[in-house]
Each structure stands twice: as C-alpha cells, then as structure tokens.
C-alpha cells in the first residue's frame, strides 16, 4: 500500500504531513518512508534516521569516437532532447540535456557512440524506529531529479506500507513520484495561489488515475476558497491542520506535531481517514 503526499507547489506542508503520518503508521508496524523531494529533501530533520548506507545514482552520457565518426548527423536527428550538435568536423554533447535514452547509439551507422556514466545524485538509506527511511539527493547543478526518484522507488518491496514525500510542482518529478501510488494526499492552503496549484495537482492525479483527497494546511476557519473548489470538483477534504503559532514553532524546531497532545488529533484524524480510504493497514 503506497500513499504519496504531494501539492502543486512548495511550502504547503507536504513534508509536515508526510512525516507525521509516517510516525503514526510506524507505531503499528514497519513502514517505508521515501523522501522523493530530491532537490531539497528535508524529512530527515523530523524523522531523524540513523544513516546506514548510501548509493550513487548515475546516468549514462554519450561519448563520440571521433576517429570513426563521419559527422553524418543521424545521432542528432534522433535525439529527443537536442543534446547533440553535429557540426562539420565536431560533435558537441550537452550532457545536462541528455536523459540517457540511448537513441543516438542505436542510430549511429558508424557505431561510434559509447556511454560513460556520470554521478547525478545519491540515495541514502537509514532507519528511525520501525521506519525504513530512503532519501533521494540530486547533485547541485543537475537539471532533472527523475532518475534519482526512480532509484529511490526501486527500494519499495511488495506488500510493504509506504509513504512518499513528493517533490513540489506538477512536472515530471511529481509524476515519477506519485506513479503507482494507491492514494495521493494533496496538501493545500486557503489562498488563491494554492487553489490554482491544487487544481493542477488534481489534474495530474486524474490523468494518472490515482485516487486522491485534500488536506488544508494553515486552516484559519475561512477555507471557503478550497472548500468550494473541492465540492465543485467532487474532491474529498480529509482533514485540516490549523494555522497556529504552536504548529509553526514545532516545525521550526524539527519536531513532530504528533508528539504534542493537543496538535496530535488533527494528523490522527487524517491518518485514520486515509486508512479507511485505501485500507492502509
């Protein structure tokens, strides 16, 4: 059972919700926690895993043997990312655009394209109680975290209980992260911007056919903008996290909300509702 926590945009409280749900879920049994926000992972501040291992994430980048190349341009024609420029007597490779599909090597009549690997990130693995923690980390300057996210997700074992902290946005990184989830929680806030982002994230889930619901963070009793949107789009609101000083203070100190008697009930309520929606047992 895989639950992902996403939002259309950063800073809505994805991580806050994900780590607190993970903590509640881990009370019952072992759980996998995947921090797929590889550009800026921060779940470890809250779950404080003890790191056990780290593996590199590599991507192949083409290398042209210019002794044999006749500059026919076939490789550049087929490249879906325009990562190769064939000139009269040179082939330029733009590694940051290449996503390693291998098309150039297949299309080269002279067979002069080989690949070398380049490190673009890493996956760190650790433990925090009964939480098996995995974190994707993209190297500075690398443009796309998709391959790192793929590698993080390879750690999911069959029939395991998984919570995924997704990257912000609604692009490829989010798609890769939520793909295959049984349920996706979309965290939002009562503001026009967040509503707009929520709308986009909702469309992604619809396209990927992933059941999803909404959690309103920084709820201040005037959540109509989100409530109206959700009822118009037949989206369920699973719960709310209040806009309060205590919440902000705990988060800024790297503490869990569920460790506070008073704040605990909001996340517990959300957790129980999700459990019911997707038999997360």
């Amino acid at each position: 059972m895989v639950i992902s926590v996403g939002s259309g945009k950063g800073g809505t409280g994805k991580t806050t919700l994900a780590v607190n749900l993970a903590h509640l879920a881990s009370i019952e049994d072992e759980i996998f926690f995947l921090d797929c926000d590889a550009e800026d992972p921060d779940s470890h501040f809250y779950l404080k895993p003890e790191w056990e291992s780290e593996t590199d994430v590599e991507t192949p980048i083409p290398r042209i043997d210019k002794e044999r190349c006749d500059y026919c341009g076939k490789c550049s024609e087929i490249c879906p990312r325009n990562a190769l420029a064939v000139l009269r007597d040179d082939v330029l490779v733009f590694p940051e655009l290449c996503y390693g599909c291998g098309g150039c090597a297949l299309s080269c009549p002279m067979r002069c394209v080989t690949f070398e690997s380049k490190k673009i990130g890493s996956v760190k693995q650790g433990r925090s109680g009964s939480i098996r923690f995995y974190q994707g980390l993209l190297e500075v300057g690398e443009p796309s975290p998709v391959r790192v996210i793929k590698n993080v997700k390879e750690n999911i074992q069959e029939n395991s209980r998984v919570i995924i902290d997704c990257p912000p946005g609604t692009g490829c990184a989010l798609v890769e992260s939520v793909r295959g989830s049984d349920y996706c929680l979309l965290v939002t806030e009562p503001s026009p911007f967040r509503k707009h982002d929520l709308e986009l994230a909702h469309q992604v889930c619809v396209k990927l056919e992933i059941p999803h619901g909404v959690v309103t963070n920084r709820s201040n009793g005037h959540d109509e903008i989100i409530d109206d949107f959700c009822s118009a789009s037949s989206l369920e609101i699973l719960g709310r996290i209040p806009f309060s000083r205590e919440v902000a203070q705990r988060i800024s100190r790297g503490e869990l909300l569920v460790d506070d008697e008073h704040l605990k009930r909001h996340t517990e309520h959300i957790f129980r509702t999700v459990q019911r929606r997707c038999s997360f047992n």
Partner: protein
Amino acid sequence: MKVAISVQGNDLSSPVDPRFGRAQGFLIVDTETDDFEYVPNPNVSAASGAGIAAAQMIANKGVSAVITGQIGPNAFGVLDASGIRVYTGAAGSAAEALEAYKAGKLSATGSATTTPQLGVGPGWYGPGRGGFGPGRCCRGGPPGPRRGGGPW
C-alpha cells in the same frame, strides 16, 4: 559572405526576432547581393535544446555570422565551435539590422547574453536555472571502453 538573421516574418521587412533558439525563422542573406533565403525554425516549440538545434541548423547553412537579439550559452557554444560570429542586440526590421551590421554598428559578442532557457520550462527544470556551458566530448582523449549490456 552569408549571414543569418533571426526574424519574425519571412522577408527583409520583417522585424528581427529577439530570440535565437525559439525565433520564428531565419533569413540567410548574401551580404554582397542582399539575396536571401527564408528558413523556418522547426525548433520554435522544441521540448528541449531549441538553441542547440537552431545553431546546428544555421551552422550547416555555411553562414559566417548570426544577427539576433539575445543568445544563450548552449547555442553560443555551438556557433562558436563552428567559427560563427554572433552579433546581438539587433532590433527593428531585418533590413535595418543588416544595414547596422554592414556599417559596423553591431558588435560581436564573446559570450552568451542570456541564461539558458534549459529544457521545457517550469516543472521540468524551472525557469532561469543553469549556467551550463557546452560539454565537449573526447577532446583528443581515447574512446571510452564499450560497456557490456548497453547504457541503460
């Protein structure tokens, strides 16, 4: 001598397109006769690497100079490697830009004048990130070992 001008139309009265990689098209002009050929830019809405692809296309047209508004580092890298001079800051009609070029009023840039619009915009890479130069492969080095089983 031939020069390429990025344009928003298909003749010399068309306005200069300030973008290079995502220009609507290019006029390849013979500076002696002012004869020109219009080449539409197939990369206007390329998912990624529009500048690289446009620069490659222009380089293969055998021009000696490019006249445009702005140029990014990837496209500049390709043009530079082909020995093509890049004149930026052109405005007005293509004919005016051509006159300015001939009168020596445009100056050649030695580097990119804008950051790479890497890839496909927000969501993928986000706008305005980067600062990547062109990567050169196997400069004089031996070919890499062929790895078994393919790269992926």
